[in-house]
């Protein structure tokens, strides 16, 4: 039996999408393998239910596969593009159910993702590590407000209601949180996106 543990597709994200657009199905499968854990993890963090998370993750990857030809490299990283699709689908799914129920455990997992163990850190790529490190710089209440807005699509008004704080305070927390994260990522010189060819 062939050992495939070390198997990697060395192409960059952009090259894989280009190949998918030309009908290269092995590129499609390589793309799915590269991102499925991240897409499913994000979907699960938001919807908090395995079956629903799988539906969301499948739909997100299908959309990326079928829209590979229209991906525009000037509009950000492939990872950011794919995860934004995933997040929007997950939030839409929750809103369609007419209740934006946020699983406290899922929220805690997101929060805790910023304080991972050294073992977990070793398995995480550079961009994710930088984000988690940037989030640890925020006071807990600011981090929570930012996570609510970024992951669950909550408006400042919804954050204010959920946290029982004035609207202005919610806006300030979201704004200050995002500014600090942006500055931290910028000063760390974090590359946008996941591993590229030769880095795996």
């Amino acid at each position, binding site marked *: *039996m*062939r*050992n*495939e*543990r070390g*198997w990697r*597709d060395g192409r960059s994200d952009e090259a894989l999408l280009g190949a998918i657009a030309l009908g290269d*199905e*092995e590129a499609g*499968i*390589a793309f*799915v*393998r590269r991102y*499925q*854990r*991240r897409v*499913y*993890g*994000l979907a*699960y*963090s938001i919807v908090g239910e*395995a079956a629903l998370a*799988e539906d969301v*993750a*499948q739909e997100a*990857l*299908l959309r990326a*596969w*079928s829209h590979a030809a229209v991906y525009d490299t000037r509009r*950000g990283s492939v*990872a*950011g*593009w794919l*995860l*934004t699709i995933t*997040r*929007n689908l997950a939030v839409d799914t929750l809103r369609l159910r007419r209740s934006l129920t946020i699983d406290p455990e899922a929220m805690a*997992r*997101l929060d*805790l*993702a910023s304080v991972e163990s050294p073992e977990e850190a070793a398995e995480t790529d550079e*961009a*994710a590590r930088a*984000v988690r490190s940037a*989030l640890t710089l925020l006071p807990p209440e600011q981090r929570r407000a*930012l996570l609510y*807005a*970024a*992951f669950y*699509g909550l*408006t400042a008004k919804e954050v204010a209601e959920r946290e029982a704080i004035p609207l202005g305070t919610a*806006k300030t927390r*979201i*704004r200050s949180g*995002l500014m600090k*994260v*942006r500055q931290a*990522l910028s000063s760390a010189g*974090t590359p*946008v996106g996941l591993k590229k060819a030769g880095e795996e």
Partner: protein
Amino acid sequence: MARLQSSGGCEPTRDLLFELALGSLNGAERSIALSHLEVCEACRRQLAELSGAADQLLLGAPEMEPPVGFEVRLIEQVASRSPRRAGDRRRGRLRKTALALALLAGGGGLGAGVALAASSSQAASGPRAVRLAAFRVRGGGGGVAAIEAGRPSLLVMRVEGLTGSYWVSCVLSDGSRLATLGRFNLSGGSGHWSARIPALISSSKVRTAELLGPGGQVLARADFSR
């Protein structure tokens, strides 16, 4: 456009850019922000920077292993959603076959077992149907099995999370069992394996493929009848 800039300029919009970048701005405020962005290069630049940071935030979500069979179900959807022209059913089936084989091969080129399937495919006289089934091993590990109908018909398995020696057998639709289709050793935790289904047995009659441990105990069943 000039009206928007003169009636408040950038200041009212600057506050909205954060929520816009995070994708959480709705209704009238979103409309106001978008109208202003049409005419303000500086705010567009700021939005682009904030959006970059907001996108990166999503990278911080914890990664999780999807359920067993996730890839198979995805590939089935890719095959079923591909655009079809009239009379293109044969091409669709072949595409599903190619996708399934690429999936089982690990997506990175065809291995020995699947190369056999590919060469047989060329010799076959018609399109070859592929049936897929996911399986999970109690206590950890799992994989995907595929039966490719043809001459010869093949059983292909992709296994993950296991180490050791395993046997594979099949149960037919009448309940009878093929004692052994083959044996494989797995040392690296994952890999794929294939075997010919005896010519006397119609591949359509194979109901389940069973993964057996060294003592003959059934560790997992891939059910093709579902």
